[in-house]
């Protein structure tokens, strides 16, 4: 019994970090109807930032998070101008292809420089032991930081002018333009924030698990699942969706061989979509 509880709690902890990553994806999707296929590559960028900065400067892994956020933000703005700006309003396939191309370029450069070798950042945070089970300190800390960053995002979106402008553009871009909101600037900032979230969640994941240049795909897939579960365009929903996914993984793992976890996860995902086509937590499309 305790084993199942331990599994669930650990699942929730990791789920929070997945949720943080998905928030970036859902924000971009919700604001401008663009599916950012560089999401995985940006998470990997966060992981490598973690590795390079801790290796070169001996920084604590958690001190890398602010630079990851800031670097991710500017990378996102750059991404917007390169791949997304001209695709706004065009058929979704165009932006899909253009972000996918950027993804290929980034992964290609990454593979050329670092190969597909495995990288590991050692993080020693004392864990919490309950009975025979131990929750690694890194998992707990990553979950707490993910929750804090998510809360900061919520405050930003609901209590600052720019945040409200972003929500307005998500709601109805034309109407936002009519009330003199500088939509292009807002779109660029949204992509900046979305990529910043991807990068920082990548850095957090880097403190938990080893990674390669190609690791982004797996986490991006989980990000899509979480995003759809949580309702497109709903960052809070994404966080809750991440928790739901983590809960599911934790619940399933003690009972079936580990290789079945993904099968069950995706089967349930399909069933959820059939029952809730808009995601479990969405109220209305475009409501942030």
């Amino acid at each position, binding site marked *: 019994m305790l*084993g199942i509880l*331990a*599994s669930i709690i*650990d*699942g929730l902890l*990791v789920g929070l970090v997945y949720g943080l990553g998905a928030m970036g994806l859902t924000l971009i999707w919700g604001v401008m109807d663009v599916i950012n296929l560089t999401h995985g590559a940006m998470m990997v960028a966060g992981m490598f930032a973690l590795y390079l900065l801790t290796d070169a400067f001996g920084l604590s892994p958690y001190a890398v998070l602010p630079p990851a956020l800031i670097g991710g933000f500017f990378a996102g703005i750059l991404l917007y101008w390169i791949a997304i700006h001209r695709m706004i309003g065009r058929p979704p396939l165009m932006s899909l292809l253009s972000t996918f191309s950027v993804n290929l370029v980034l992964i290609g450069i990454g*593979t050329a420089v670092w*190969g*597909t*070798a*495995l990288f*590991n950042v*050692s993080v020693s945070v004392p*864990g919490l*032991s309950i009975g*025979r*089970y*131990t929750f*690694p300190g*890194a*998992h707990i800390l990553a979950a707490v930081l993910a929750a804090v960053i998510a809360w900061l995002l919520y405050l930003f979106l609901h209590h600052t002018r720019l945040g409200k402008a972003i929500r307005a553009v998500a709601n109805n871009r034309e109407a936002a333009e009519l009330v003199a909101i500088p939509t292009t600037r807002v779109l660029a900032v949204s992509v900046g924030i979305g990529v910043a979230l991807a990068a920082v969640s990548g850095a957090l994941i880097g403190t*938990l*698990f*080893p*990674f*390669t240049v190609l*690791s982004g795909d*797996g986490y991006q897939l989980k990000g899509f699942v979480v995003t759809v579960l949580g309702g497109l365009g709903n960052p809070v929903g994404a966080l809750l969706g991440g928790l739901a996914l983590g809960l599911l*993984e*934790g619940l399933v*793992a*003690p009972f079936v*061989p*580990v*290789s079945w*976890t*993904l099968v069950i996860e995706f089967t349930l995902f399909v069933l959820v979509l059939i029952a809730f086509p808009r995601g479990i937590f969405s109220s209305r499309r475009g409501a942030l």
Partner: protein
Amino acid sequence: MKAFSAILAIATITASPVFAADTNIITIGFTASRTGPLNVDSLGQEHGFEFWRDEVNGKGGIQVGDQHYQVKFVSYDDQSVGGRVQQLYTRLINQDKAQFLFSPYSSGLTAAAAVITEQNGKIMIDSGGAEEKPFELGSKHIFMVITSAGHYLSGAVEALKEKNPHARIAMVYSDDPFSKTVLAAAKEQAKQAGLDVVMDESYGPSTTDFGPIVNKVISSNADAFLGGGHYSDGATLARQMYEQKANLNWISILVAPADDKFAQLGSAALGVTVPSQWEPQVSYKPEFGPATADFVKNFEAKFHQKADYHAASGYTAGAILQHAIEKAGSLDPEKVSQALNDTDVTTFFGHIKFATDPAHHGLQAAHEMVLAQWQQMNGQLGRQVVWPAAARSAPILYPIREASH
């Protein structure tokens, strides 16, 4: 103009044989996983090949009858992907005209290469794939110099039984042909030794989050662990079992702990055992080739890294092929195959002899695994040989962790 071209053509045709006769070359082809998850282990094997090639060329080359042949390698990156291996071995044989082949690294890739080499009747020396299956399909020209998968963990099971006849074993391993074969054989051996197998699960080879599995190991009340796969998953498993305080008295992990990089895990590495094809401490007396100490010293001087068993097995692939060619006095695949069938020699790597019955042709029949364990030596972590007793360089450390850590 026409006359000039004719003269040029005749000159080229008559000149070429002269060039060929000056340098006799044997071309050996192989692929290495220079990228992809198998890259760490593959590199050791490739260095072993290169070390042998440079040594034999430095001594004048391989002697075939009264001619000497320099060894030339043609190699490609298989990216750790089976499909690439098949394309590349076809290319090595048909376009690069490789006369002999070395295997890639890992059972899965070796099986893929074996299909091609057997179709073309070319000899392949296998130093990187321990799974028996390719040798049970009626092959004639593949020869395995390493101990096969079925015997990998038998030493670990015997050592565990000696230390704790009531051990409860959790088996958790990668879902790939090599690991599955090793652990299936180990399960049989454990049962016959009267040990309890309380958990038996495989995971996808690209798994990075072993948290749920480690929790299951804890829930199963196991006090011994056998499993792993290759470097990345094995190292991560060891680390996560330590962080989650799985408190196992015995851990045997495949492949990963045999690499010197494993020392980076620090306390998580202490006590972990690994079945090894070879360790620098073994003391076989070679009938030809370098002694163990010389190989270790010269390899490290050349590559600035310690020789591990991948390097030793790679070197042995070359040395055994050379021995067979020289005994056969010919480069003809059938004659060299016969010489390989007749091979019964001891090198620094161990005793090498191939099975010749059609059902297992080419399988290694004489070489034995040792069990190495990470222990503290003079304040530093290093591998000691702990099994079999005859090859031991240190006593077995059991239980591997203090109960209250």
